[in-house]
């Protein structure tokens, strides 16, 4: 009976939605108490937050521009989870992708070639960085959490070195050379920061969805994630599936890095201390958990986190809440949101571990 199955699924999902709503509410209340203790008006701050993230086209565009890159880094984590991996290497892969775009920007090329080459080189470098962790996992059984964290730092210093010594901007040593205008993603709405990177992100999320649910490789990845032993029994090579999960994730984050260089005004470059890239990879984990590790859940989740960041401006400007407090508020809300997802993830890991022991 398809009808009854539909209702069971709907009930389950409504339960999950309620869970998220409760988490949001709890997060906002706790953060509100924190602001109130700090001597600020939490209601006014939340109103300002909403105002500066959705209330007019400019703010909406800002929100979407912040959502675009974290959508991609969320795909990195989500594909990993689907393959049973805890891949937190999006950060480093994003740095490498950005470096790839800067390398292409340093070449003398005919204008129309910059963007496609930047995308290719950037996503390849991201993929290679992801693959490094993948190979360690598959052939040396190095825990991917440890290896990706270490690779993140290696990427940070490699890119920072390249910024200072290989590709510095001759006019302004605080950043690398910029992507030439011909290689930039066009701004979608004039006078905003929203560039075509949003379209790139949405398309890639669509591809990731198709790949995971309508292609053999995606089936193999998901089967490996659900139970590697059963997958092997079913004729799937779990090692191959895991490696592909790392590669796809690397491409996604590398692409995010390229988009930040080719689509983020005004500098279109890597800036000192990688300050324009820092944190985007880790935000992806939040987004993915919040979006139930599903491509279609990731889109609204990324918009929510983007709104949180863009709304932070309103909290500072309207209510005078200092940035440190705003960060704490964001952190509390994010933790509250991530808790159910993490609990579920851990629970499923334990369950799977139990199966292995038997």
């Amino acid at each position, binding site marked *: 009976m*398809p009808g009854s*199955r*539909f209702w069971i*699924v*709907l009930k*389950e*999902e*409504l339960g*999950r*939605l309620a869970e*998220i709503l409760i988490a949001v509410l709890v997060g906002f209340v706790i953060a509100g108490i924190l602001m109130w203790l700090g001597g600020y008006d939490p209601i006014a701050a939340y109103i300002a937050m*909403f105002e*500066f993230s*959705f209330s007019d086209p*400019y*703010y909406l565009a*800002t929100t979407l521009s*912040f959502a675009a890159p974290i959508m991609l880094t969320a795909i990195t984590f989500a594909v990993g989870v689907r393959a049973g991996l805890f891949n937190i290497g999006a950060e480093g892969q994003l740095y490498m992708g950005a470096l790839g775009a800067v390398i292409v920007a340093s070449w003398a090329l005919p204008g129309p070639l910059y963007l496609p080459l930047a995308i290719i080189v950037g996503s390849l470098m991201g993929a290679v960085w992801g693959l490094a962790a993948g190979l360690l996992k598959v052939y040396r059984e190095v825990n991917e959490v440890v290896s990706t964290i270490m690779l993140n730092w290696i990427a940070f210093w490699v890119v920072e070195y390249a910024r*200072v010594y290989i590709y510095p901007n001759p006019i*302004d*040593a*605080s950043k690398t050379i910029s992507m030439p205008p011909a290689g930039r993603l066009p701004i979608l709405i004039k*006078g905003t*920061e929203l560039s075509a990177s949003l379209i790139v992100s949405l398309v890639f999320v669509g591809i990731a969805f198709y790949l995971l*649910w309508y292609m053999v490789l995606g089936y193999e990845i998901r089967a490996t994630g659900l139970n590697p032993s059963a997958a092997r029994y079913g004729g799937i090579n779990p090692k191959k599936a895991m490696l592909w999960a790392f590669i796809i994730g690397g491409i996604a984050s590398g692409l995010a890095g390229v988009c*930040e260089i080719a689509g*983020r*005004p*005004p*500098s279109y470059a890597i*800036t*000192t*201390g990688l*300050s*324009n890239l*820092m*944190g985007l990879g880790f935000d992806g984990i939040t987004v993915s958990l919040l*979006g*139930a590790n*599903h*491509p*279609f*859940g*990731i*889109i*609204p*989740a990324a*918009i*929510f986190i983007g709104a949180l*960041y*863009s709304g*932070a*401006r*309103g909290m*500072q*400007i309207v209510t*005078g809440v*200092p*940035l440190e407090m705003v*960060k704490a508020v964001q952190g509390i809300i994010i933790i509250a949101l991530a808790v159910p997802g993490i609990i579920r993830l851990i629970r499923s890991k334990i369950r799977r571990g139990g199966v292995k022991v038997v």
Partner: protein
Amino acid sequence: MGKVIRGLSSSAYIGIIIIVAIVVGIAAYYAGSMSAPKTVSTTTITQTTTITQTKTITKTVAATPTTTTTTTQTTTPTKTTSPSPTPTVTVPPNAPKKLAVVYDIGGRGDLSFNDMAYLGASKASKDFGLELVEVQSKTEADYLPNLRSLARSGHYTLIVAVGFLMTDAVKQVADEYPNQLFAIIDGYIPDKPNVLSVLFKEHEGSALVGALAGMVAHHYNCSAVGVVLGMEIPVLYKFEAGYYWGIRYGEQVYKQHTGENIKPLNILWTYTGAFNDPAKGKTATEAQLAQGACIVYNVAGATGLGIFEAVEEAAKAKGRDMGPPFAIGVDSDQDWIKPGFILASMEKRVDVGVYKAVERALLYYAGKIKKFGGVMELGLKEGGVAISKIQDLETFLTIAEQAGKKINKTQIIEKIKKMRSEIPQWIWQEVDKLADTLKTNPDVEVMGLKFSQIEKMIPLDANEIKQIRQQLGVPTG
């Protein structure tokens, strides 16, 4: 239908449901504001009309002589009791009533650059009766939205961008909002009518600390003095050039005053390549101390904290609780950080820069100046740079206390007073004399190089600094 549902993973629903929820939420918000449009829209209309009204008023005022503004001007100075620059301007009726300060990723709490910008802005907001709004930037991607959000509201007399990292963003937003006034500290945007670039004559202040270093080094019979720098960028060449010139000037004065036949000092310099690496600052300083330097100038931001440490350790190793060796501080009055080991500081008064920028914006709104934009260079004469004085400590110790540092004010001040008294009084007087000279006559010549010649070469490039080093007997590197 059932097949499609099974095709989508169960968790896909959640995404769809959230999308619907957000769309509904936004729709509800807009619907709400539309269904009750009277209150919302009328307020916006009245706002716009008042703006146009004030505009027409100012036009008529401009046509008639500006007697009204002059009368308000005469009444204000008696009201304010602030210490140094008493405000000569008030907020004209046509000017917006708020003042915004946007910090770069460095942000508040650095006890120097950014905190000084705040100091200037808060003083200006108090003196002129403007509401101060501060915005910090979490990442570089925040510069543009921060500036745009402020500019588009039209509520701000002036938006101050603190730090040269924001140069590109200010350039872009200034073009988009030509009626909004901006000021950028340390950034160079000379060609926009609505942007004021506030720059500092670091070479003047550096010449003063250089002269001090030159004389003190000879007083203690040292063979060398040094400078540890951050990243090799053109701004730092200004510090270098001024410092070397000052050292040679100091030597010349020392010779004249004491009549001794002295051997010229070796001048050592090191670029550490970083502004935020105290460990590198410490190693570089230790190397210079080993080569006989007894004074090391910090031109390296937070890297300089390592300089202070190295100097303190070297002095303590010789059983002294005071220099030599000494360090020289930079930007803010850093004398208190290691009291007794920091001879003086080259103050770059960002607070003065911000204050003057606000003042200029108000003058512009009042119609007293025709052009707001351009470059405002602040040197000794304008109070933009200075050598630290005992009296300055009070202000900077207060900043430190506000930032949560636990310090013993009186003990620190006593120790610094004692250190200063160890050095012959005439040396301090000579430094003050040089400050006066540079204000009036920059043609003073040392080793065939006039100070004004250095000034003319600015902005310096790598070749020019090499040339200056050569002429002043500094290793060219």
